[in-house]
């Protein structure tokens, strides 16, 4: 269905080609998952499928890419619109119309379908992606998850035979991600749709894949069956790591498969449970640690919409708190009110004894630091070096950035960095101010596992030296790995607040993979298992 024949893609001014001599064939009806580190060329591969690269990116493409027999050299993207549907990373940038329903119809209008067909397909697409209750809403008022689903629906309505998705679930909460993936799975099974999808959150998607396309980062691309590729891939979800460590054969890719192997391990762990070891997530801050920030009866209202209602929260020194909840539940609003970007309608916010709204300049940065959802928003200088120079402590910022993202040329423009490197730079800039309270809004979106590990290490060290860290995230694996305490928000209310181990094991929605495999044993990560069983196996 999709065929790459010795494709080499070189961007202008690039030292090395982004894709080098790629030969790849994705047969019809397969769900192929593209994996690789950030900035390795996954997006280039996806964009080459319908000719967006090099048509819109510039550069030279050697070799041949054909989709359903059509050559991208002779067919511009618009002539492929009826065979290939593409949803790129930030769907907000791709919305052409104002309303959900019009957006879904847009592509069909371009294809010149008859009004009756359009009516029918719009209804089908709305149902398929669960958007019927927001069909008349303006797109920009939707939550991130709804926007992502609207973008997929608008492409699916064109009935393409190939669907290309770049990070379709990374902005979604676990439940919304499952919905989207279930819808894709149905399309692949029922309609024989071919899907090519890049995704960092392998734990969500790897079990659905028929084939894994590994983009190595030096331009090479290889592909194989998931079990083969996962056996030694440098990026792997926790369930695969557990399987590799326990030498389960064949390697389990899903929680279900792993549970069937995990009986003996569970028995061993249950026997050991009487002597609990010191585990990663158990360094709970003592109740008498100093209070760093406090929300008292805080309400935030936008018009008639209540984003936070009567929230009480106390953050102590040395804590790492994960804030979880659906898209649009109020996580970002909570962080914004802690840094004074959102004024509260009622209640009291205190950060280091001050109301953050009243702080500005150095007073603010030395009290609280925040990395917003899009770390690029924080960066406006021409080069990495200038960004570091403009931070509160340039030498420390440079060092932090070097630790997090080694080997980056300081003369590079922040926009040319990969997603992970940009986050590292924003984090370095914010951390160098040395605030005792650090807020991170969805920090692992678009991050590969190695960068994530470095991030977790850095944050743990910060917390150990007394800083308080609050992370709003959809990433259950991150919360399990990092947080000592987890707060679940729904509709602006705090639903649960407690030690991470208790909170995430209590709910299947927030449970990490290892906990699901080993339930009822309350272990969250592979590291936990290793800590309990240091000498076993």
């Amino acid at each position: 269905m999709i065929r790459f024949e010795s494709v080499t893609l070189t961007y202008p001014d690039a030292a090395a080609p982004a894709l080098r001599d790629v030969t790849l064939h994705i047969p019809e009806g397969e769900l192929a998952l593209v994996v690789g580190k950030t900035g390795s060329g996954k997006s280039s591969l996806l964009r080459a499928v319908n000719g967006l690269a090099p048509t819109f990116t510039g550069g030279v493409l050697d070799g041949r890419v054909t989709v359903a027999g059509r050559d991208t050299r002779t067919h511009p993207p618009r002539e492929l619109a009826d065979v290939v549907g593409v949803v790129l990373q930030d769907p907000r940038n791709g919305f052409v119309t104002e309303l959900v329903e019009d957006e879904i119809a847009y592509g069909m209008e371009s294809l010149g379908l008859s009004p009756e067909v359009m009516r029918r397909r719009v209804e089908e697409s709305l149902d398929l992606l669960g958007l019927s209750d927001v069909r008349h809403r303006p797109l920009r008022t939707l939550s991130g998850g709804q926007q992502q689903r609207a973008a997929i629906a608008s492409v699916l309505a064109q009935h393409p035979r190939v669907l290309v998705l770049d990070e379709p679930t990374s902005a979604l909460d676990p439940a919304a991600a499952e919905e989207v993936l279930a819808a894709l799975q149905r399309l692949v099974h029922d309609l024989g749709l071919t899907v090519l999808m890049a995704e960092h959150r392998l734990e969500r998607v790897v079990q659905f894949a028929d084939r894994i396309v590994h983009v190595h980062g030096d331009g090479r691309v290889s592909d194989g069956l998931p079990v083969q590729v996962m056996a030694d891939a440098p990026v792997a979800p926790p369930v695969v790591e557990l399987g590799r460590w326990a030498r389960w054969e064949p390697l389990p890719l899903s929680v279900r498969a792993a549970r069937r192997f995990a009986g003996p391990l569970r028995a061993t762990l249950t026997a050991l449970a009487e002597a609990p070891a010191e585990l990663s997530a158990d360094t709970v801050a003592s109740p008498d640690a100093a209070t760093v920030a406090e929300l008292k009866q805080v309400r935030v209202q936008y018009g008639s919409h209540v984003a936070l209602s009567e929230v009480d929260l106390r953050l102590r020194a040395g804590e790492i708190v994960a804030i979880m909840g659906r898209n649009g539940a109020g996580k970002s609003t909570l962080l914004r009110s802690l840094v004074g970007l959102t004024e509260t309608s009622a209640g009291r916010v205190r950060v280091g004894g001050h109301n953050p709204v009243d702080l500005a300049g150095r007073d603010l940065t030395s009290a609280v630091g925040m990395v917003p959802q899009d770390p690029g928003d924080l960066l406006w200088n021409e080069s990495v070096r200038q960004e570091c120079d403009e931070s509160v402590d340039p030498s420390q910022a440079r060092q932090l950035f070097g630790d997090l993202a080694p080997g980056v040329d300081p003369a590079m423009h922040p926009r040319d960095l990969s997603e992970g490197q940009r986050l590292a730079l924003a984090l370095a800039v914010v951390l160098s101010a040395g605030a005792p309270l650090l807020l991170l809004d969805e920090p692992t979106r678009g991050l590969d596992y190695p960068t994530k590990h470095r991030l977790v290490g850095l944050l743990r060290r910060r917390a150990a030296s007394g800083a308080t860290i609050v992370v709003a995230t959809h990433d259950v694996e991150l919360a399990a790995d990092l947080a000592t305490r987890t707060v679940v928000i729904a509709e602006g209310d705090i639903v649960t607040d407690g030690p991470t181990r208790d909170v995430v094991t209590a709910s299947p929605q927030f449970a990490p993979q290892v906990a699901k495999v080993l339930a009822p044993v309350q272990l969250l990560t592979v590291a936990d298992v290793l800590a309990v069983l240091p000498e076993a196996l």
Partner: protein
Amino acid sequence: MSAQRPARALHPVAWWLWALALAAAASRTLNPLLLGAIIGVAALVVAARRSEAPWAASFRAFLILGTVVLAVRVIFEALFGAPIPGTTLFTLPEVTLPQWMAGVRLGGDVTSEALVAALYSGLQLVAILACVGAANALANPTRLLKSVPGALYEVGVAVVVALTLIPSALMHLQLIREARRLRGQSSRGISAVARTATAVLAGALERSLALAAAMDSRGFGRLRPLSAWERRVTASLTLSGLMALLVGGYALLDAGTSPLAAACLLALGAALALTGLYRANRRAVRTVYRPDPWRWPETVTVASGFIAVAVYTAVAVADSATMAPVTNPLTWPTLPLVPLLATLLAAAPAWVAPPAPSSTSVSASRPADALAANPPVTEPVAA
């Protein structure tokens, strides 16, 4: 008007025709009472039938703009206006200008006659702006785009995309200001403003490119293949039609040419251009999803506007004194009954047009105005 009438948006073309007709009527009179009535009618219809969409707030902006225009018109008249004899209200110090600027006056006597005349013509501009503002507030620009002929669709899209760029740039600006706050830097000062502007511009360009890529990959601009000969015929039809329109328009304004010849040329040009457009349309493959229906409220709305302009034109020819009150000597303007009735008739859409669909579902979860307070949509997706 019954409470049970289903809400639906009136056809945007109907709103524009109604508003343009009303504006044309306003251009036929200098009578301040009639102009006031027209502004009132426009405001009434906007208040009754506007939606909750962001563009619905634009009427106010147009009124403010009108007030500024009126003030500028009157002030300029006082400063630079040609002297009109009459009752002198006050005298500004007059600047003696060099010989080569003879004919331009600066300062001097300001007469009430001159000011009133300026006021009337300024009011006319306000009324025209109010009508355009009403059309802006009432008609959905993206729905209007659907009525654009397929051959011109790409041009229309360019305009609409350019218009949406401004709100998205404003949103981005807000994000950058917040980011500056987070980094402990002020948003004031020349260097800060310059950097912010650069960032906003870069962001806008980046988004435009992303949008172009997304639109192309969804089939924007697909054309049905036509033979080279057919393309040439279409192009030459359109081109010659436009030429004829141009020459005809010139002839109409030129006193030496007979109006009949000019009208013939214009008609020929219009026919050729429309044929060309029609043929070009066949190349476009676009269809329209749920086109706005044209029912009797649309017809009544347009008719009410056209009746107003017809009455104004007829009365202006028959009785120019009431339509353009004499300002020298100053007379109290009279309110002519027939044009007033026609103006009031133009308020019919306030009742005839179906109520605008209210977006209750929007306010239930996240109203559009919340966005102004909280620009980053709560969970934006990966950049």
